[in-house]
């Protein structure tokens, strides 16, 4: 009886974790019980170690995890409360993620500056436009690709398909009369999308986010960050298939909608994180921003230079590009021009898609 209560109490912690967006499946709860039992436990530290080993909190959220642990195990949260919350959770947990993708919202990025006022935004999602549908259809053929190290059977190719060649040779007494080949597969390059959510981009932020939501459906690694006065990693939220849910999550995550612009500092924060830096390596970087930087643009210049050295290509889409032969006029954009491969228009989704697909630019701009 006593042990039943203890087990119930331990499993209650898994419920708390789940409510807070941590990974805590049923089999992990069972493993947590076994792990705690295996350690004795002699002290609360043993239970904490067991919890950390089984529930695998990401290192950047270990503090939050420990805080929850303390709150729960040091008596500030009761089992009854957890049970009530769990029942409520069952009704609200109907999230719809893409198969095989993460639901981890616990990685909202890094705050670049707290000086600027922060604000939230409520989105009213709209159905996909024809341009987005077209983009999804053509992106596989038009976006830049790279050769992977995986190979597939092919009529021609530099590698020999040894399995099929030997199989064919069994019919000819071991004589290799026909050589069959393999060639390396092509795959879309990884994409890094940087979206400026500052006040000057207010009327274009939603366009960019809707585009990002479609981009996430492509069969390649896509990472999306919002930039303003803070850097926020919004990829996990965008992975929610339903646009309403994705945008609701984004409005919860992003604290600097319609605030000031500090691109240099936020990009600097991005580049100082080795993990984020890896997202830019060899990737197609798409920045959607008007480049209206507050103050000096030295930080932005340095960040653009670094991104240029890492990326496959850096495309800067700005709503200021109203003509086909756009050339930057703002001080910040003029300075970083040598490090940008292409400038294009971000006036609407049609413009963004058309530019990336290399299709003719919509009439209103041409």
């Amino acid at each position, binding site marked *: 009886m006593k042990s039943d209560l203890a087990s119930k109490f331990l499993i209650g912690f898994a419920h708390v974790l789940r409510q807070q967006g941590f990974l805590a499946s049923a089999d992990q709860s069972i*493993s947590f019980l076994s*792990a705690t039992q295996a350690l004795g436990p002699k002290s609360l530290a043993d239970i904490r170690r*067991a919890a950390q*080993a089984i529930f695998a909190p990401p290192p950047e959220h270990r503090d939050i995890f420990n805080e929850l642990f303390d709150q729960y195990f040091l008596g500030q949260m009761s089992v009854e409360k957890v049970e009530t919350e769990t029942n409520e959770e069952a009704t609200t947990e109907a999230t719809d993620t893409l198969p095989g993708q*993460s639901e981890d919202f616990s990685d909202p990025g890094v705050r670049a500056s707290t000086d600027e006022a922060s604000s939230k935004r409520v989105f009213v999602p709209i159905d996909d436009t024809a341009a987005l549908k077209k983009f999804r259809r053509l992106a596989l053929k038009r976006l830049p690709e790279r050769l992977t190290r995986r190979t597939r059977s092919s009529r021609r190719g530099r590698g020999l398909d040894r399995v099929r060649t*030997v199989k064919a040779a069994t019919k000819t007494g071991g004589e290799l009369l026909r050589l069959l080949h393999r060639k390396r597969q092509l795959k879309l390059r990884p994409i890094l999308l940087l979206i400026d959510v500052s006040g000057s981009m207010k009327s274009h932020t939603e366009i960019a986010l809707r585009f990002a939501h479609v981009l996430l459906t492509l069969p390649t690694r896509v990472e999306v960050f919002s930039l303003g006065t803070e850097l926020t990693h919004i990829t996990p939220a965008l992975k929610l298939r339903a646009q309403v849910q994705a945008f609701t999550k984004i409005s919860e995550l992003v604290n600097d909608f319609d605030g000031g612009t500090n691109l240099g500092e936020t990009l600097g924060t991005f580049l100082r994180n080795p993990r984020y830096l*890896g997202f830019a390596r060899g990737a197609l970087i798409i920045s959607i921003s008007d480049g209206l930087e507050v103050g000096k643009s030295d930080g932005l210049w340095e960040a653009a230079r670094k991104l240029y050295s890492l990326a496959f290509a850096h495309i800067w889409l700005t709503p200021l590009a109203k003509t086909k032969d756009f050339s930057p006029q703002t001080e910040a954009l003029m300075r970083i021009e040598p490090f940008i491969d292409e400038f294009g228009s971000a006036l609407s989704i049609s413009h963004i898609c058309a530019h990336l697909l290399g299709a003719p630019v919509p009439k209103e701009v041409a």
Partner: protein
Amino acid sequence: MKVGARYKGLGSPQDVQEALSQALYIASEDLATAIYLAMALGKPLLLEGAPGVGKTEAAKALSSTLSCELIRLQCYEGIDANTALYEWNFPRQILAMRQANDAKLNIYDPEFLIARPLLQALHLQSEGLLLIDEIDRADHEFEAFLLEFLSDFQITIPERGRIRASQRPFVILTSNRTRDLHEALRRRCVYHWIDYPSPSLEVDIVLSRASNVARATAEAIVAAVGRLRAEPLAKAPGVAETVEWADAATRLKDLGETWPEAFRRSIGVVLKEQDDLSFLEPRMREIIG
């Protein structure tokens, strides 16, 4: 629950910690607990951490502690079943076919099979440790395949049928976290994030790993590395680099170099990015101490 008979002498995290220290690996209490739990629960151990914090070394030390064979699978993008599981010995198959003429020959006999790390691990008759290194470098397809392998410890070779492990090896996966691993894989493992060690622990590691390094040198190097890690560098130095720096500086000192100069001249062992070097150049004296 006690650790099974397979891991005799490792009945608690403290036992694991002591055993590892005999293999010159100084493990934190948290790491020792994670290893102990992985053994006790019969689950794979997933070690994540920045490059050079000692993830692979932990596996090597553990195999030496358990006196068992270490089978290592180094992951990379595009790794496939041929590299990880098995491959047919094609030249032998062709030669055998030619020699056999009209005689009956099974070209899918085990003698033509080349076992790669995962199959080798299944064939182990005694204790074994399977190290799947840098899993984050492999692509998602391979990760999904691995999930299946790790849950059942069996594989199917189309020409030969199912092969099941006679004895499950202890599995350690490492990741530098250049990308997030799939949740399904993470939740099947016992997890531990290896962080940079505390200064005192790092001094002990340097003294046990590097040759002929004085304690004062180790302390100075560890303090300098601590200052470097606080800087916004493209690549923060790992523990392996700390050990190498202590070793390199001591060698230069033995050749007659003075102390701060020996540290400065061997900085290339610890900082390997031109951007980092030029960024720190004006404050190098202050950082080295």
